[in-house]
Each structure stands twice: as structure tokens, then as C-alpha cells.
């Protein structure tokens, strides 16, 4: 674990250098990395563990906004924001999805800790937002009902 982290660090340094000297095209540069373990976690508990969230506080400064009823689970608009100073990371999880973790954001300084996106929901569930500020985790949730629609199948 320690070893691999160090090699990632090393890699980042080289990567950073490459960027500085413009060896790589700007389109290849991605600071974020797709972590299969957290996105493939089958329960929220497991996903939180993979994200390194062991303790968190429910906070009214974090808001999950959406309609209480979604006409279609394939597209559920969700707006999440944090009023906590120095919020630099956010994760949106749909508790009852087969893989709860949906999307994560890194907010560099100057970017509002507020985003709107659209997620898929397998059915009615709580949608959670976890945010990190000064190394501490805060959370909020909202229940969104997914309805069946229309005539016929």
C-alpha cells in the first residue's frame, strides 16, 4: 500500500514535469483518477470505506436538492452544495443503487462547492452527498421517489 502510493506520487511528479515542459498534449492531463474499488463497491458502507470516509457529521450546511419524485430513474437531476468553508471534495452516492457511488468532484480554490448533475436511480432511494472540508467529512441526504410511468410496458 505504502509502496504503491509512493509510486503514484513519483508518477505524478514525472507527469507534472511532462506537463510543465508541454511534452504531453493538454488533453491527456487528468489529475483525477478512476478508482474501480470505490465505484464498484456494492454497498454504501463499502463505498465509504473505499473513499476513506470513516467518520462523518450530518450537516445542514450541505444540501442535496432535487424533485422529491423523479418521473424517470434513468435521469434524476441532483444539485449538491456545501456552505462549509474550504470544501474541496464531494461525492454523490445513491444508497440503493447496485453500485452506490455515482460521481466525485475535486474543487480547486475559486470554484464553488456546488454542482448540478444527473444520475441514474434503480428505484426510490436516499441520495447522499459527502463533502470534505479541512480534512473532515460532512454529509446530507434526500429521499427521491422514482415512479413508474405511462401505459404499457
Amino acid at each position, binding site marked *: 500500500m505504502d509502496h504503491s502510493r509512493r509510486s503514484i506520487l513519483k508518477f505524478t511528479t514525472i507527469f507534472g514535469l511532462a506537463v510543465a515542459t508541454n511534452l504531453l498534449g493538454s488533453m491527456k492531463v487528468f489529475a483525477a483518477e478512476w478508482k474501480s474499488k470505490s465505484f464498484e463497491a456494492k454497498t454504501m458502507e463499502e463505498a465509504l470505506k473505499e473513499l476513506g470516509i470513516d467518520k462523518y457529521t450530518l450537516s445542514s450546511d450541505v444540501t442535496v436538492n*432535487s424533485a422529491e*419524485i423523479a*418521473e424517470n430513474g434513468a*435521469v434524476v437531476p441532483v444539485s449538491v452544495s456545501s456552505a462549509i468553508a474550504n470544501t474541496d471534495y464531494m461525492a454523490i452516492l445513491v444508497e440503493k443503487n447496485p453500485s452506490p457511488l455515482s460521481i466525485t468532484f475535486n474543487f480547486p480554490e475559486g470554484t464553488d462547492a456546488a454542482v448540478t448533475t444527473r444520475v441514474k436511480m434503480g428505484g426510490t432511494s436516499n441520495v447522499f452527498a459527502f463533502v470534505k472540508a479541512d480534512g473532515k467529512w460532512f454529509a446530507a441526504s434526500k429521499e427521491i421517489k422514482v*415512479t413508474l*410511468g405511462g401505459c404499457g410496458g
Partner: protein
Amino acid sequence: MKLIMKYSLTILAILVAPCVLAEGSSSDEIAKYRELLADGNPAELWEMRGEELWKKKVSPNNVSLERCDLGKGPGVLKGAYVELPRYFEDVNKVMDLEQRLIFCRTSIQGLSYEQAVSSHFGSVGNPSDIEALVAYITSESKGMKMAVSIKHPKEMEAYEIGKNFFYYRAGTHDFSCATCHSSDKKRIRLQELSNLLNKKDAQKTYATWPAYRVSQGEVRTMQHRLSDCLRQQRFPEPKYASTTMTALIMFMAKNAEGGVFDGPALKR
């Protein structure tokens, strides 16, 4: 009989009053859901691709569709959609937008009919050129009023055939279009049904197709919408861009006359 109905309805209304309240907030939340989605309609992505396709030279004739006459002269897009379907002298027929596009793709670009209608309804990994073109062409009429004509005898004929079809009850379930779309403020499950005989309702509905359907992840055209309706109506499959469908579209477009076109929209 009517009196009894009225009476029992009142009783019912009293009985279900708490539930009506709950229902009210349900529809508010659904309205909110739609509002939240309206900002950032993926149909714009289809419009962008459609514009490219409209201007792209296509073999065998190696020409673009920019010479296609949608009724207001070759290449004129502004306001073309709000006057469709219409009678076209060059084919002596009433055509809707999709029929006309196919005509232009065959007659101007030299595609075979099969090529011109291929993938008319797109699916994952198999995007439809027609859906993109329709998204682009219709977007050029945004903000204009629906104004189809039924002055030409063939336009009148299309309208009347469409009207007859609207009321035509058949199939295992005895459904017609009118079964679901001729009364005000009805719902199927939680979906509101539009009364296509009520001008305001017809305008609101007709003038917001084509639309990006979130349930399908594609921009769907009027032909697709009707096809899907008829499937649920337990009718067999209408042939794509057929005379009957154009007739039905003509009937609906006329009922929506004066409605301000606001497509491509975003729908369930």
C-alpha cells in the same frame, strides 16, 4: 343518471380530499423534476449534429441538403417546420417533415429509399441521422407560430383522414387516440394526458415535439411519438413515414394552430 354521477362524485371528492392534497404535491414535484431538467437539454447535441449533416455533401450525388425545399424555397429553414405538413406540387402529395427529408435525400442526394430511411429511429450505438436533422430543422422555427394550411384539397383530405383515424377504435383493447386524448386534465398513471381536441392543450403538446426523451436517451420525432402511442394503443406497427401518419400529424398540427413552437423540448 347524470345527477347520480355528479352526486357520487361529490361524495367521492369529500372522501378522498386528503389524498387529493397528496396528489397535488406529487404533481408539483413532477413539475419541479421537469423544470430542473429543462436547463441543459441534450437535444442541443442533436441540433449540432443535425446542422453538420444538413451541410454535409453526401454521395452518390455529392451534394448537401442545402438545396432541399421544405416548402419555403430551397434551403430555407426558418419557419419551414411550422407550416408542415403541407402540399408539395413537385410530388403532388402532402408530406410531413420526415417524408420530405426522405424525398430530398433520395431526389437530391441520390440515396436509395432504403438508405434514406435507414436507422430512422436511433438506438444505442446506432444514431439516427433523421432524428438529428429533424432536431436541427425544427430548432430553426423556435418561437414561431404553428400555421399549417388545409386550403389545398389534398391538405383537407389529409386532415379529414387524420381526424377519422383519431376516433378509430379497434384492436384488442378498443382504444382510439381519442380514448386518452379527448378529455381535459386526465392522467394515465402519473402522466398527464393532453386533450388534443382542446386548442391550448394541443398547442402545448404539438409545439414541443420533437423532444429529447429521458426514458430513451434520444431525440424523438413526431413519427416516433405516434408510433409509440400506437404500440400502447395495441395497434400493429405503422410503416415509417406513411400516408396515415402524415394525415394524423396534419390533424394534430391543425388543432395546434397558433401555438408557439418550442421544440426540440425535453420530455419523460
